[in-house]
């Protein structure tokens, strides 16, 4: 097991290195921040001084080297706009985004798996067909539109739930969270459901497809031939088998949740990383963009690592194969 984890860690480091190259040079190609930052009235000497101060006069590969060396020291540069370290800016907003993403993940698993398993066990019932049609809607309706509709119905017309902000937060291990207060929960509900809809549909369809496939396997019939209760057959024999693809996809899609939260955060004015990155892109605030992308890459890599480990816990065949390799 540990050899497996170490091997995956090495691969992860390689991925991060390659991504840092792509991200850094990619961002450097796009636009010239000097135009955005410096007063157009300024004279040439001022402009050059500003460029020098930002380090933009050096060749790109040299800039990358400084970036890399500093990154290892935990310094991803300072925002051109705020003057604060980019990392600090992002870390301040990260809890809000993570809270939103985890809530959405929780909702999609909580509802997606039971709905999918039910639809897989009784595919011909009206309920199953309704679930599957619903999941198509969840897939195809654009997140921002659903978000706006939810605001219109639940916040404007019915007035049940607030439409913007995080509401009241409390500190949990020094991190502000909304879900522990009633007001925070009320604020969290709409954006979390909005963000969850797509993933919920995905999980539902995966769980259904998995169930449909697994229930026809010999080992399920054998489990029934052993005289097990239908409950145990479904909850242990079927569920554990369908969890393999579900966990993989949930893990991989968790990164997607964070990415999609850009839209949801904008719609619901949720003060997270998504809003920050949109603003930074508009201002060509390179250090913040690079830092955001690097952190996202790190998160993806970490999630993948966790999924691989979880996967091997769920599927003993993977464990053995990888331990030998």
């Amino acid at each position, binding site marked *: 097991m540990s050899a497996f984890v170490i091997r995956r860690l090495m691969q992860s480091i390689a991925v991060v290195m390659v991504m840092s190259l792509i991200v850094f040079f990619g961002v450097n190609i796009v636009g010239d921040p000097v135009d955005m930052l410096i007063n157009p009235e300024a004279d040439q000497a001022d402009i050059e001084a500003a460029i020098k101060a930002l380090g933009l006069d050096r060749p790109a590969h040299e800039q990358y080297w400084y970036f890399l060396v500093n990154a290892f020291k935990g310094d991803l540069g300072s925002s051109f706009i705020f003057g604060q370290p980019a990392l600090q800016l992002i870390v301040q907003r990260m809890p809000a985004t993570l809270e939103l993403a985890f809530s959405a993940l929780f909702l999609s698993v909580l509802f997606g798996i039971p709905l999918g398993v039910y639809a897989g066990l009784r595919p011909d019932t009206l309920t199953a067909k309704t679930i599957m049609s619903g999941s198509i809607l969840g897939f195809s309706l654009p997140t921002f539109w659903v978000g706006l509709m939810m605001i219109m119905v639940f916040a404007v017309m019915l007035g049940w739930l607030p439409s913007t902000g995080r509401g009241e937060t409390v500190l949990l291990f020094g991190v502000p969270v909304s879900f522990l207060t009633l007001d925070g929960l009320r604020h969290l509900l709409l954006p979390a459901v909005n963000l969850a809809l797509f993933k919920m549909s995905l999980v539902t369809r995966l769980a259904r497809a998995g169930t449909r496939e697994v229930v026809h396997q010999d080992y399920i*019939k054998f489990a029934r*031939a052993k*005289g097990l209760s239908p409950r145990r057959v479904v909850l242990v024999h079927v569920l*554990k*088998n369908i969890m393999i693809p579900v966990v993989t996809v949930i893990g991989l899609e968790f990164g997607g949740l964070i990415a999609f939260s850009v839209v949801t955060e904008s719609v619901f004015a949720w003060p997270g990383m998504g809003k920050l990155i949109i603003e930074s892109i508009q201002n060509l605030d390179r250090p913040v963009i690079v830092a955001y992308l690097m952190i996202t890459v790190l998160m993806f890599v970490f999630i993948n690592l966790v999924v691989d480990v979880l996967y091997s816990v769920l599927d*003993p*065949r993977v464990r*053995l194969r990888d331990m030998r390799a």
Partner: protein
Amino acid sequence: MGTDAPALKVENLETHFFTKAGVVKAVDGVGFSVERAQILGLVGESGSGKSVTGFSILGLVDPPGRVVGGRIEFMGEDIANADEARMQSLRGNRIAMIFQDPMMTLNPVLRIETQMVETVLAHRKVDRAAARARARDALGQVGIPSPDERLAAYPHQFSGGMRQRVAIAIALLNDPDLIIADEPTTALDVTIQAQILHEAQKLCRERGTAMIWITHDLTVIAGLADKVSVMYAGRIVEAGAIDDVLDHPVHPYTKGLIGSVPSRNKRGAPLYQIPGMTPALLNLAPGCAFRERCPRAAPACLEQPAPSEPVPGRSVRCFRPYVEAAS
């Protein structure tokens, strides 16, 4: 439990599949009985309804299939009309089944221990430790070395033969009165097959377990079964004591089946085969289903032959049996 009742008595069993294209009569009026400590061989080609017969007895026919008629008496109790709760308490407990493909019958993501212990706990009020001890003993019984360690293993860590032994051990866990073995050795090497047949026979003799051994391979049951029922297109066409049937087949199909087994004595001669193909069971024409392939077919065969007893102790569905060959 009635003391004189046979372990299993099936009468006129009908299992049909209601597909969109029509009704498939997979099992159509099948009957047989198995005494305790007796092994019945149920022989037939693929698609003749052998496995469906087995699943019908357990009440495990999946939709669109359904048992539509007949009587299934297990230890004197009619179980054809028993409710699901009763069937669940019999399955894996009094009636156990072993499946054809050992690579597919064990759940790949659960330990052998989990899969065995749950079978004990489903039927007995014992604690986990006792259930585990029972599982370990059962593994030892079917010849799996160091059963204590193997309990913690997953199915993929066993070979095919070993997996089938595990499946058999699971079948034995609750000391069933009847074991339905659905081609359990088809996927295995001959040497492993021989070992498993030996184990099966030993169990049957030692514990008085009745057994239905479903197979397409006559050579497998030749030395194993006490009696044999030959199935063709959902019906039993010939039934009798194993040696009698193998030595003097009376139904043209049985004769063809025995003739199809390659023999060492006729090296180099073209191998015999029954002409034609197994008929599709969907909308099967009335009359004897074998008549298209039968060398002795006659106009009378356009009607369905009823079971007769042309030779004592032999039940045959045929208008023109090879009686002269049997006498």
